[in-house]
């Protein structure tokens, strides 16, 4: 007969601090030192002075002197009853734990190893207590009667009724030894119903079962054994508190026993399982949701910040408008008080403190101009500000200078390359791009560019004019040779010389881009100088021109006189030409 300690406890290495020994979901509740252990009725010689730790799942005894070899742990699942003896005189208070074996016993020593889930074959890391164990990949709870390292025969050291199918088992059991009255076929190893005489799959005759639970152990109810053991003390352990502290520890112990943390996972599938949340498909879905939620929150924070920024910008604009108004108001006072102001200014040099109103106007005019022009340049256009002469005075000079520079870029200085030397007409987008590239770092914004363009004619020879096509809004710079009238004249000569021309041919002849040629031809058409001929889909047989291109003719309709059949018997007035 083995002792209770041998059967029910497991040795642990006491040098490892207890928190490291705990399962992931196990919590330490209470501990008490100076405790001795009674194995059954007698004192256990090896465990006389140590510390007892009560956790939610187990009871640890760490020996004080030989912690490495004399420490053990006891699963609280094995505790059936507890007893409390308060102690009197010389005997110390004792707590008795009556233990019973359960089918979970044999797997206890495997809880500290990694285990393989039966469903997905994923090797789970160790650390979770048996009952709480769920496969982290598929979320299926760990099987009751399975073992991670399949052994050919069940370890029978501590098992009482290992093979009894008393406990409902959610996980499928693929234990190597047939369980639950099933007969393994000798040929195909299929587990048949016990009452089958032949194998369901292969038809082999099945060996007859002798006793269902013949191997391993006698499947007898544990109670007679238990009761007898009770009296003989082989199923009980006592904790002797040499230095007190029994009451709180006993209370903690009872709480743990009541809480039955090891059974929670088995019975309930409650939503607030911390293990379930992190595992399996639902875990993946939940983690995806969490990511999306975080992203959403971050976005909203960013948008809130943006709104604040916009509010601040509005404040700034309002302030600048205020400032502008004040400047306008003050500078309008200038002409009246200018004469007096200058005299005051000349007479008093340290008048910054007094007569500020008289002093301000003079300085304010320049400042006002400066501030206003900088406001305009910042892009904060004020609707009510008149464009005063002083504000634009400098800018006009600046624009003229820019125009001069642009003229140089366009027409060259006689030696270097230029943009318009060989081309008479050019789109302003090309001009702007080329000019900025020539300028390098000091770029010109489009608005300034547009303001500088009107001055271009004064600095270019032949004068370059700007023109905007009405149909598409394209703006071009062109030399006089590309003015509409001269272009049309050339075009007409071209057509009469060579016959009807396509847009492409015109573009080649004039050496301008095709789109530009199309623009100019459209303009000429709208002016009535040319007319079109195109061959749409309807063509008779294989005509010479089935491409669908537009050919441009001179406008033959302009001066056409009817020269067809004269109507001889018409009674009504002739049609107008």
């Amino acid at each position, binding site marked *: 007969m083995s002792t209770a300690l041998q059967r029910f406890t497991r040795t642990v290495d006491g040098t490892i601090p207890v928190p490291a020994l705990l399962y992931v979901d196990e919590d330490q509740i209470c501990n008490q030192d100076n405790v001795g252990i009674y194995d059954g009725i007698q004192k256990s010689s090896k465990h006389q002075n140590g510390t007892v730790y009560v956790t939610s799942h187990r009871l640890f005894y760490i020996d004080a002197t030989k912690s490495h070899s004399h420490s053990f742990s006891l699963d609280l699942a094995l505790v059936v009853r507890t007893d409390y003896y308060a102690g009197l005189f010389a005997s110390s208070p004792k707590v008795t734990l009556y233990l019973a074996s359960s089918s979970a016993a044999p797997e206890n020593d495997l809880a500290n190893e990694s285990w393989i889930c039966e469903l997905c074959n994923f090797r789970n890391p160790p650390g979770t207590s048996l009952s709480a164990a769920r496969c982290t990949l598929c979320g299926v709870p760990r099987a009751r009667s399975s073992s991670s390292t399949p052994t050919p025969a069940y370890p029978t050291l501590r098992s009482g009724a290992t093979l009894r199918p008393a406990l409902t088992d959610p996980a499928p059991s693929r234990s190597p030894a047939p369980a639950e009255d099933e007969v393994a076929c000798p040929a195909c190893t299929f587990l048949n119903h016990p009452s089958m005489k032949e194998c369901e799959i292969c038809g082999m005759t099945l060996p007859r079962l002798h006793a269902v639970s013949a191997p391993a152990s006698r499947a007898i109810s544990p109670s007679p054994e238990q009761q007898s053991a009770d009296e003989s003390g082989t199923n009980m352990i006592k904790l002797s508190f040499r230095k007190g502290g029994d009451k709180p520890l006993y209370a903690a112990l009872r709480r743990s026993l009541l809480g039955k943390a090891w059974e929670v996972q088995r019975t309930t599938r409650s939503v607030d399982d911390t293990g379930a949340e992190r595992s399996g498909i639902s875990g993946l879905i939940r983690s995806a949701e969490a990511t999306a939620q975080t992203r959403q929150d971050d976005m909203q924070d960013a948008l809130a910040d943006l709104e604040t920024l916009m509010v601040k910008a509005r404040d700034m604009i309002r302030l600048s408008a205020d400032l502008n108004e004040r400047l306008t108001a003050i500078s309008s006072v200038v002409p009246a008080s200018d004469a007096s102001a200058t005299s005051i200014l000349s007479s008093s040099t340290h008048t910054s403190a007094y007569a500020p109103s008289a002093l301000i106007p003079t300085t304010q005019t320049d400042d006002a101009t400066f501030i206003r022009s900088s406001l305009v340049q910042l892009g904060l256009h004020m609707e009510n500000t008149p464009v005063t002469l002083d504000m634009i005075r400098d800018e006009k000079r600046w624009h003229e200078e820019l125009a001069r520079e642009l003229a140089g870029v366009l027409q060259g200085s006689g030696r270097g390359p230029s943009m318009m030397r060989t081309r008479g007409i050019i789109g302003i987008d090309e001009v702007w791009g080329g000019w900025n590239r020539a300028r390098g770092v000091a770029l010109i914004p489009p608005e300034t560019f547009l303001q500088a363009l009107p001055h271009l004619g004064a600095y270019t020879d032949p004068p370059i004019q700007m023109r905007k096509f009405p149909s598409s809004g394209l703006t071009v710079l062109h030399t006089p040779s590309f003015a509409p009238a001269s272009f049309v004249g050339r075009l007409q000569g071209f057509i009469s010389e060579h016959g*009807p021309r396509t847009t492409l041919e015109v573009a080649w002849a004039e050496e301008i881009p095709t789109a530009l040629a199309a623009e100019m031809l459209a303009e000429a*058409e*709208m002016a*009535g100088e040319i*007319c*079109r*001929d*195109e*061959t*749409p889909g*309807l*063509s*008779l*047989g294989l*005509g*010479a*021109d089935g491409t669908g291109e537009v*050919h441009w*003719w*001179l*406008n*033959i*309709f*302009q001066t*056409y006189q*009817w*020269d*067809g*059949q004269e*109507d001889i*018997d*018409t*009674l*009504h007035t002739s*049609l*107008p*030409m």
Partner: protein
Amino acid sequence: MGLSTYLTPSGFLLPSIHSAPPFFVQQPNPATQAVVTEQWTRLVLSYARHRRLFFLRLDDAAAPTGEWAEVLHNERINRAPLPPHLALVLAHMVAKGLAAYEPPRQSRTVLLHWRLPEEWAEVLHDWAVGTGQLNTILTFFEIAEPEVESPLVGIPAPLLRAAIAVLARTGRAQAISIPDGEGVRFFSGRATK
């Protein structure tokens, strides 16, 4: 440009503009297009008068053969007006009173008035007087297909009806409904030619 007129096998002289491909193309420029439409109108009416064609359909533009092929198709330059262009011409003619949608309330077929209904009325009355058929009831069939050649051969019923209406206003004709068609009786009336 060197455009020239062309004499069709049926004896119709096509104008030089008919040899110009742009004539067959709808011009975006409204002024130019107005000229084009005008010339088309004249051409169509002239040809209809020459060949005594009363109807013009949009489908005639699509068919390479037919009564209008000489005008609507120019094989020499391989051009034909597209149906939208032709519809424009038809609409112009109807707007000027030179044609009428027949049957009404559609825009694919027109009845050409190369002779206005008023003129048809005169011709009709003159013919009735000339052939001595006053005061007798004549059916439309007899008028449109007489045994003797007359300028009224092939006149469609709606046009005839319009002409009779014109005459009726001046009391020179009276529409009569008879079995198997419509009839008319002409009177001498006091209207001068």
